[in-house]
């Protein structure tokens, strides 16, 4: 009762200290409340109610801080933590809630408050999933891992560490993934899967090295050293322990790590059978007096190990007192597995120095204790020892020993298989993802290729079609030209024939008819007409008439010949024909004229063809849209330029607004092809004038 009061008093002091630190009103309230609590001794339930009324966000942190105080009794800390948890549940901001929850879960783990830890950690896990906080998820797994290690559920622990590792990896948190690897290596070592453990540790080392995490590196190398010891590769083990010590030099807060390593090296030499060297290491570790204060467990272990090695070395000075010394310390610490080891060592000692009864007693104690803490290694050692010294029950012990070994082996194999499965599933998953991503890449690449091929093909096809179209167009143009040429040549042939015919007629008239008439007239002259004056005069008149007829015929003949001259105007004739035809169709008058200077024969056929087509187009436009009643077309020649004016009195159109019909476009392109210019002026309801100039 008095002790409890003191503890409460102590609690009070710590709260006062906190108030001094934080100096806020809430803390004052809290202080008052606790003081009240102390004096009245209310039940915790009402406490919570009161605390609810004064709940603030900050309060959770304060409760947690209180729960962290190591100098408080565990139960108190637990209750503070529970309060923190209940308060925290009221928090509406998930991220803050999660943060606190994570701390609470970790504290619960440290307090070995299993149900509370399970609850808080699962809450934290769910919340982090809700928040999609990968780090949080990983952290919760980590907590689970730690928890299950403590619970000796190694497979579950391994599973959670592995999950944590994957999550830390996915957010590239190298440090924590290294830590997870280390934890996994530790578990693998525990189930004697040494190669896997070694591999994992080196993986962890590769993560820590670039980060210069020396303490972690120390731990890793230490772990490797232990692993190699278990694999009975002692020289390598010693080397790695020395490596661990090398990294330890760079660690600021060394604690008792050095002594721990020396102990481990000593153990390696012990297993090697070099007891005197082992003794040196233990003694070296014990030279540091501070070990006793800093790490009493280690101190006890060192003494025990030193004594055991001395015993193995055949040196019995201070024995078995040193065994007892260690045992007393261990006993006072209530460290059952350590006590078991001490008792085992004592049993061995007494076996050798022929006090079998004592030996059996110690061995039985060791067996009992190690069974209590579920330490299989020590159970086995105890059974083995008992079977050799307790002659009466030897067979039972041996049987137990064998069956336990078998079941342990089975268990270990099972767990190892489980680990492999976990690893394998992950590998498979990774492989699958890789395969999938490879497939996806293939699909992307192939579809891209296909797409580009399709695009290319369509592009080529389109280009081909375009070319074809162009070719057709040119061919069309060519054939048009050809047709026109034929038309022209036909025309000129016709003209030629016409002229030939004219010439023939002209010559026939001249030579034939004219000659005959001349002959007749001359012949008539011969006859001396006798008669009256009237008759004679009439006779003369007829002769003169013949002469006149001769002249007329000669003129006609000449006329026929000289008309031949205008023959090369056939192009003009063709244009005229076109206009005549069109004017009849759509009823317009026209005036077509050209300069005499234009020798159509000498004008390039290409120009003539295109101009013909332009006129055709224009006339069509006039027919279709302009509704003109008069069209004027005039050709002039000026400075080697052929000008064409086409004028109508139709309805006209807006040259700005008109989206350039295909007809106008065609005309423009024709003129452009000839290297000329085209100007279209149009006034609504007045008419359109097209000016075209083409160089000859």
């Amino acid at each position, binding site marked *: 009762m008095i002790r409890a009061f003191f503890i409460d008093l102590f609690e009070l002091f710590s709260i006062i200290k906190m108030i001094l630190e934080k100096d806020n009103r809430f803390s004052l309230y809290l202080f008052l409340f606790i003081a009240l609590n102390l004096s009245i001794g209310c039940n915790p339930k009402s406490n919570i109610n009161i605390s609810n009324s004064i709940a603030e966000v900050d309060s959770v942190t304060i409760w947690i801080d209180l729960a962290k105080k190591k100098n408080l009794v565990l139960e108190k800390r637990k209750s503070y933590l529970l309060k923190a948890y209940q308060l925290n549940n009221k928090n509406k901001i998930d991220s803050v809630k999660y943060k606190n929850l994570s701390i609470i879960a970790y504290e619960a783990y440290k307090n070995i408050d299993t149900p509370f830890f399970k609850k808080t950690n699962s809450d934290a896990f769910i919340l982090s999933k809700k928040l999609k906080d990968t780090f949080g998820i990983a952290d919760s797994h980590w907590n689970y891992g730690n928890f299950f290690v403590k619970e000796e559920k190694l497979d579950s622990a391994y599973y959670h560490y592995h999950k944590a590792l994957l999550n830390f990896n996915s957010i590239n948190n190298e440090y924590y993934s290294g830590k997870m690897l280390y934890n996994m290596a530790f578990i693998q070592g525990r189930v004697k899967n040494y190669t896997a453990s070694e591999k994992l540790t080196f993986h962890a080392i590769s993560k820590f090295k670039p980060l210069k995490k020396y303490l972690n590196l120390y731990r890793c190398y230490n772990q490797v050293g232990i692993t190699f010891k278990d694999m009975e590769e002692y020289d390598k083990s010693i080397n790695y322990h020395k490596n661990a010590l090398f990294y330890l030099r760079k660690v600021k807060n060394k604690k008792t790590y050095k002594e721990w390593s020396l102990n481990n090296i000593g153990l390696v030499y012990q297993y090697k059978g070099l007891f005197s060297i082992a003794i040196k290491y233990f003694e070296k570790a014990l030279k540091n007096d501070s070990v006793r204060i800093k790490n009493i467990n280690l101190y006890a272990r060192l003494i025990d190990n030193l004594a055991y090695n001395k015993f193995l070395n055949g040196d019995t000075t201070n024995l078995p007192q040193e065994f007892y010394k260690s045992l007393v310390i261990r006993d006072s610490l209530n460290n059952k597995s350590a006590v078991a080891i001490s008792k085992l060592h004592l049993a061995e000692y007494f076996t050798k120095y022929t006090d079998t009864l004592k030996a059996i007693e110690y061995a039985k104690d060791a067996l009992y204790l190690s069974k209590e803490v579920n330490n299989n290694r020590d159970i086995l050692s105890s059974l083995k020892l008992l079977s050799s010294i307790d002659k009466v029950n030897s067979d039972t012990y041996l049987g137990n020993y064998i069956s336990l070994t078998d079941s342990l082996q089975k268990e270990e194999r099972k767990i190892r298989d489980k680990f492999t499965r976990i690893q394998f599933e992950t590998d498979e998953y990774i492989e699958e993802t890789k395969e999938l991503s490879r497939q996806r890449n293939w699909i992307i690449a192939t579809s891209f290729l296909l797409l580009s091929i399709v695009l290319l093909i369509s592009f080529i096809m389109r280009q081909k079609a375009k070319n074809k179209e162009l070719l057709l167009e040119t061919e069309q143009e060519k054939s048009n030209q050809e047709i026109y040429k034929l038309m022209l040549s036909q025309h000129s042939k016709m003209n030629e024939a016409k*002229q030939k015919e004219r010439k023939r007629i002209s010559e026939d008239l*001249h*030579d034939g008819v*004219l*000659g*005959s008439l*001349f*002959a*007749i*007239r*001359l*012949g008539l*002259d*011969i006859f001396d007409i006798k008669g009256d004056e009237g008759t004679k005069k009439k006779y003369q008149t007829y*002769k003169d008439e013949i*002469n006149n007829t*001769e*002249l007329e015929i*000669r003129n006609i003949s000449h006329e026929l*010949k*000289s*008309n*031949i*001259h*205008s*023959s*090369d105007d056939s192009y003009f004739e063709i244009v005229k024909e076109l206009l005549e035809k069109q004017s009849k169709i759509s009823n317009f008058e026209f005036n077509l004229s050209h300069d*005499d*200077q234009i*020798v159509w*024969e*000498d004008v390039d056929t290409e120009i003539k063809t295109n101009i013909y087509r332009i006129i055709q187009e224009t006339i069509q436009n006039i027919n279709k849209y302009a509704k003109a009643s008069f069209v004027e077309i005039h050709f002039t020649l000026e400075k080697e330029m052929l000008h064409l004016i086409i004028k109508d009195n139709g309805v006209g159109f807006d040259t700005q607004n008109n989206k350039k019909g295909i007809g106008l476009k065609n005309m423009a392109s024709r003129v452009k092809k000839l290297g000329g210019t085209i100007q279209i002026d149009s006034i609504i309801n007045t008419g359109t004038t097209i000016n075209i100039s083409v160089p000859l």
Partner: protein
Amino acid sequence: MKKHTVLIVDDHPLIADTYQIALNKLKSENDNIDFQVDIAVDSDSAVDKINCYTKKGKLDIVILDLNLPESKDGKILSGEDIGKLIREQHPKAQIIVSTTHNDSFLMNTIFKSINPDGFLIKNDINLAELVKAINSILGDIPYYSKSVLRFVRSQVASEDKLDKQDRIILHEISNGAKMKELPDIVGLSIASIEKRKRRLKDIFGVLGDSDRELIQIAKEKGFI
């Protein structure tokens, strides 16, 4: 009494007949004139007759139609060639050329190749004039009908200005020859033909570029 050997060459029998009548008329009017008349109605018989006269004796007067069909051997193309043949074989013979063509170019050519003693454009004359022409020639005086005389006068007026090629060009253009055919006919390049045309237009005072105008004026002035 002097008997003149006369050869009439005309493919038109009726005309040849008329010529003979004219000769007879002249004979009946003048006692001291007598004619021995021979008629050829185509080139071949004309050539035969000329050759015959060359062997037998002289040929005094030839009345020659210029528009004769080609001879069978193709050597004689027209009356002009027969004229040349006569001038060769009978230098003293007097030639009266008759033609229906009132054509300056032709006249020019005939004057140069045959230099006839009589030049009649058929349309100009009648029987009386024909008789007059023959009579004139008998007196050794050349006789040209009125169209020919007009031509000769214009020729004298513009003698230096036009050479043979100018005349050919004018003649061919008036006959409807095309510009691109001219170099082959005249034997000159297009450029020099153009040059000559410009010069001709200057001579005749033609203002525009048109050939038609040139031909028209040249015709008026009796060059074509």
